[in-house]
């Protein structure tokens, strides 16, 4: 039953073995298990192979331009805090062209749930190195091997004040599903860096299968511990790395008692304001 929930009925078109299949399955299962209805959810996607997910995930959706899914999602949530707002974005979308938005949303604790489809390569543009491509990897833009140091997204997000930072693995669908459920239940900004193989342009599956391990328990109990987990290099922990509580971005707009999206075409009483100009 749950497997067929949130299905638009369109057949997904990704390469065989693409990590996006696992992420799509996990998010569908998570939404179903959370008991959400499609009308209550908005998924904003960016540009990249991940972007097609809004074709297949049967919730309200906005397929935005490259790099700007996060601010679109922040706008949706501010306008109607009653909606559950997901962002599907890629490593190029979130960590390169749209990086600043991600970090600012983290700092503000915007109540959006960001799922980064991190395949460590630009795939939709047919194979160039990206901000998380490991050193030495050969791509079409790095034929002699990538010479640039990749970002450590977990470290970056922890430093930016994110109140929920997790890492998932697209091949571990059940585990990822639980992460997504926790992210949606978290009050405030949640980000899951989902490691995914790209069998066509950077097949990290053997490496990921070897290095990934599930964190036991509920992750780090302090930011300091979380930073240590983020710095772990020999093995790759997946799970909730860090979770904290802080007032959300939307709470600072509690004065908008009628959500902006639901006000309709109403003219406010401007007499008090106009008196300033007398």
């Amino acid at each position, binding site marked *: 039953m749950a497997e067929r929930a949130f299905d*638009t009925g*369109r057949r997904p078109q990704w390469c065989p073995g693409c990590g996006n299949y696992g992420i799509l399955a996990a998010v569908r299962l998570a939404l179903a298990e959370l008991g959400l209805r*499609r*009308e*209550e959810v*908005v998924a*904003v996607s960016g540009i990249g192979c991940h972007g*097609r997910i*809004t*074709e297949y995930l*049967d*919730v*309200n*959706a*906005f*397929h*935005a*331009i490259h*790099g*700007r899914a996060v*601010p*679109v*999602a*922040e*706008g*949706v*949530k*501010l*306008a*109607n805090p*009653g*909606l559950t707002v997901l962002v599907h974005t890629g490593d190029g979308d979130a960590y390169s062209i749209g990086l*600043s*938005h991600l970090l*600012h949303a983290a700092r503000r604790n915007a109540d959006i749930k960001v799922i980064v489809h991190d395949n460590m390569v630009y795939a939709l543009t047919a194979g160039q190195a990206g901000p998380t491509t490991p050193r030495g990897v050969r791509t079409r833009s790095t034929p002699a091997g990538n010479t640039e140091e990749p970002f450590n997204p977990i470290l970056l997000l922890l430093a930016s004040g994110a109140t929920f930072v997790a890492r998932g693995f697209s091949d571990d669908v059940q585990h990822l599903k639980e992460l997504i459920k926790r992210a949606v239940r978290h009050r405030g900004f949640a980000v899951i860096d989902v490691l995914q193989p790209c069998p066509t342009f950077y097949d990290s599956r053997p490496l990921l299968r070897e290095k990934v391990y599930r964190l036991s328990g509920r992750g780090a109990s302090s930011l300091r511990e979380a930073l240590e987990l983020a710095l772990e290099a020999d093995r790759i922990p997946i799970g909730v790395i860090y979770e904290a509580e802080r007032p959300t971005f939307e709470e600072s*707009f509690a*004065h*908008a*008692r*009628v*959500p*902006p*999206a*639901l*006000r*309709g*075409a*109403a*003219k*406010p009483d*401007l007499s*008090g*304001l*106009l008196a300033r*100009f*007398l």
Partner: protein
Amino acid sequence: MAGGELSILVGGPAGAGVFATGSIAARALLYHGYSVFATNEYPSLIRGGHQWVLVRARMGEPVYAHRRRLDAILALDAETIRLHAGRLSEGGLVVCDERVAERAHGGRVLALPLVELAREAGAPPVAANVVGLGALLAAAGGRLEPLLEAVRRHYRGRGDLAEANARAASLGYREGSRAGLALGARIAYAPRGGRLLLDGNSAVALGALAGGMSFFAAYPITPASPMLHLLAEVQRELGIVVVQAECELAAINMAIGAAYAGARAVVATSGPGFSLMAESLGEAAMAEVPIVVVDVQRAGPSTGLPTHTAQGDLRFAIHASHGEFPRAVIAPGDPVEAYELACEALNIAWLLQVPVVLLTDKFLGESYWTVDGLPEVGPAEGSVVRGRAPSGYARYAITGDGVSPMLVPGSEGARVYANTNEHDEHGYVTTDPTTVKAMQEKRFRKLAKLREMAEREGVKTYGSGSVALLVWGSTKMVALEALRELSGVKVVQVVWLEPFPAGALRRALEGCREVLVAENNATGQLASLVRQHLLLEPRAVLLRYDGRPLEPEELVEFVRGAGCG
């Protein structure tokens, strides 16, 4: 001339309270019953440099713009005298502190111990400016009460400052009365209540609020920030969301997200920020999300002159973003139009689900005019449908007028899928040539309604004559001021720039023997639109691109020089 007209310049370094003094002077004259105009010039600095406010007042008739001639200068430093004293009329007067006067040469100078008097009033030294204003008003035969009312209003809610400054103004007024150095121009008193002193930026913010704006996002930028400041201040009282984004890309994308969700959203910026927003203008157009972008133009290119005016973004606003899509570009020329058109911009956006660009400029945005009243305008729901989705609902349904009923996320029974990829009626990505063509044609069918509005409201004519002086935006005000000295000339203002109201403009120019164009840019962008749409070569084009608004005097010279007027 008793009571007719008066021009006062307040000048000094940044930090000397030049703007505060100018604002108080403008209000004091407003309360005397004058129609008042105030404009300013300042460098992109927080301390130092030279800045000024020019306050012009006219009794009985509206005042549209600045003039070169000054009746009085309140100089808060010697630099002000050096730069502006040459513009003083006969009988004109400089009011300044004694120490400043020592460094000034010639002219009629009313030198008083302004700083000393401020101290005597128990006010901070910076209140020397209000002391000087009191003295200036006294020398011109003005009354103290309207000045005190203006001072108290300016410092309202700021504790002891209000009374301290009122005392300072009174002392200045007393000393000015005793000095026996009268100003040639005399101030009359014929008070009329209920009038507003309104700047273009505030007018846009107020108009957007009147249009039901519930979401505003901006990144700080001169000269658009005053809108952010005003709205940030009143958001609690009005229950709206006002966000300072991390950049203009974020601002417009937040607004697009909010509008997709159902909020009437506006962003405001200036040229550099508008450049950054260009890609998202097309995003809104493709996703058919209603959005209003206010571009308060400043002098470019690039960082250019951040605090100076220009009308250089016209062609850019018409063409910004890649690909082709319908949009509206409208340019108010004064605060009343700014109010009206900001409201209308939201209504157009929400009726047709298109991006609307409201083009103003620094001169309109940061100058003040006397406004007798604001028109009764308000929001129309447009094409948004609230409530349960009809069966088979398609967000991008192909319709006769190109407008698809817009449900918002959360509507029962609907999946609202907005897509910046080309898409089918339900929002799904498509590359099918038939669908691609049909969707492009559907979007462009909105142009019919836009054209209709542009033809109906896009051209305004002032005065009559066989010579037409074509202007757009705030240049209208300069032209109306010049028109007082011209005969046989009418001012034709193009309000809608895209779609271009070719028919209405052709009718406005019917029977004209000459067509002249004046605008605040280097290439004659309105003139180029006239050539393009009317196949008409203007007789002459006056361009100003030094960061300053055109002056009525140069417009008069231009019209006469072209053998007209």
